[in-house]
């Protein structure tokens, strides 16, 4: 199985572009056996990640931490759900069918990859047409390093039930 890295977000919305920026930084390293993709719609993950392991998803997050802070969560089967509030993903409408909702839908449908790590980069703002904020832009190389590191190590897939 090939590894998969997905950058989520929208590069036209300020720090929501951080997933794209990191995915591009990882892709630039041309790692053998690693697919790197960018997507705006998290719902596409349901099909996208089938048959891949490990899978690393990078997205902007708002949990109240300092902008640029990196969160790393193992989200495989048997793991607790993503904190929905932080992932802009209440699942309330369908325009906001976010990552946390997709993970839970995939879990219910047994479509969650065995090895899935979600990396969240704390965002400062999501202004229309804005570039990445300084702290988020400065975090990109280190997060790309982290993704590469995750791909090369054994990603824990299960915690004992």
């Amino acid at each position: 199985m090939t590894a998969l890295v997905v950058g989520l977000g929208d590069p036209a919305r300020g720090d929501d572009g951080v997933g794209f920026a990191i995915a591009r930084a990882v892709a630039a390293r041309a790692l053998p056996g690693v697919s790197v993709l960018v997507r705006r719609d998290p719902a596409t993950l349901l099909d996208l990640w089938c048959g891949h392991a490990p899978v690393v998803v990078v997205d902007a997050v708002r949990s109240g931490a300092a902008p640029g802070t990196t969160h790393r969560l193992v989200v495989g089967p048997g793991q607790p759900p993503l904190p929905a509030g932080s992932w802009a993903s209440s699942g309330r409408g369908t325009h906001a069918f976010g990552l946390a909702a997709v993970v839970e839908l995939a879990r219910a449908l047994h479509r969650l990859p065995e090895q899935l790590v979600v990396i969240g980069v704390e965002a400062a703002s999501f202004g229309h047409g804005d570039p990445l904020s300084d702290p988020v832009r400065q975090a990109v190389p280190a997060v790309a390093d982290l993704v590469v590191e995750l791909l090369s190590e054994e990603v824990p897939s299960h915690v004992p039930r």
Partner: protein
Amino acid sequence: MTHKLTDGGRVLQVGTLARVEGEGAMRIAFEGGDVADVHLRIYEPPRFYEAFLRGRAHTEPPDITARICGICPVAYQTSACWAIEDACGVVVPEEVRLMRRLLYCGEWIESHALHVFLLHAPDFLGYDGAIEMATDHPDVVELGLRLKKAGNALMELVGGRSVHPVNVRVGGFYRFPAAAELRAFRPELERALADALTAVSVVSGFEFPEFEQPYEYVSLRAETGYPIEVGSVVTSAGTAFPVSEFAERIEERHVPHSNALHARLVGGDAPYAVGPLARYSLNSDRLSAVAREAARDAGLGDTCRNPFRSIVVRAVELVEACHEALRIIDGWTDGTAPSVEVPPRAGEGYGASEAPRGTLFHRYVLDAAGIIRDAQIVPPTSQNQASVEADLRAMAATWSDLDDHALQHRCEHAIRNYDPCISCATHFLDLTVERS
């Protein structure tokens, strides 16, 4: 949230409606056991589309107005193209109409699949949402996801991408997909047709409240086939008029509690309804044999007046859209130009098409250079707002004994019968300041 009133009444206030497109709220006031007031409040901020279309080139509305909605961009593109072409006096070739219809089938499939399975089915099966429902009914959710994916794929094939397609232009398309590309998509569409037939039998097994409403139905009716991308207007009262008369026949009014305009038919004060029930009731004779048979097996008559059964009609329309897409693909031959020139001229033009949630009207006024001087967009959700409120008023009266949680759930279910797209409907009043 509820407030008990000192006189024994209560007010149910739902701050944010779930599983609808966009941001809306609802307020119902009871006095004793009677419903005193019902407001569907659309508080999503105004978006100023009609204002910022003024001054733009006549080639721009398909791309600009597509951005009004991520779920039904093809409806906006299609109505906009017809209206601009009408203003310029251009009639596009039949191939362009067919390709618009094919693209539109993709949108119906993805939009209806989303609404039927992920938004509306949880109401009937007793879940808070699709995620909760997926644990117990994974087959139902998988069916919906598969259909939605087929719709998205068709939009990508014809439109270049599934959200806000990029291949549509005034006068036609930038490129027609080759017949071979279209034929290669057949197996996925055949599977989607089978899934859609399954969908009809799944949703027709749901339980429906006994409830019928006497609204006047308004829909397009085409010369042939079920109305999707084109037609003229017909109503259940027997009125018929060309799309070019919609601005005289339909009146939009501002109501204080909503950022969406309410629409009424001129000369009548009762609400009217657009959308699947209206389309079906005015055009069930135009369905393909396979869709008609599915409708009959689902227990639908020639017309349907129960808003809760709209989920069954949407499923029948899924069958129709899959079948129609296959028919267009099978008849497609290469070799025609994908577009015609649409040179600008001064004038006014009208366009309409059947968005998944109902008739969408566009009107543009151009100057001789093709610059837009006026624009009017009448989306289905604003036309349905009064019916939604009337449904809530009628139903809430019979539900006054329910506790708040149950009442809220029933009311949200009733709103979702219309698959409202609040983002589309958001509008803004003209502000006049009088000083003395």
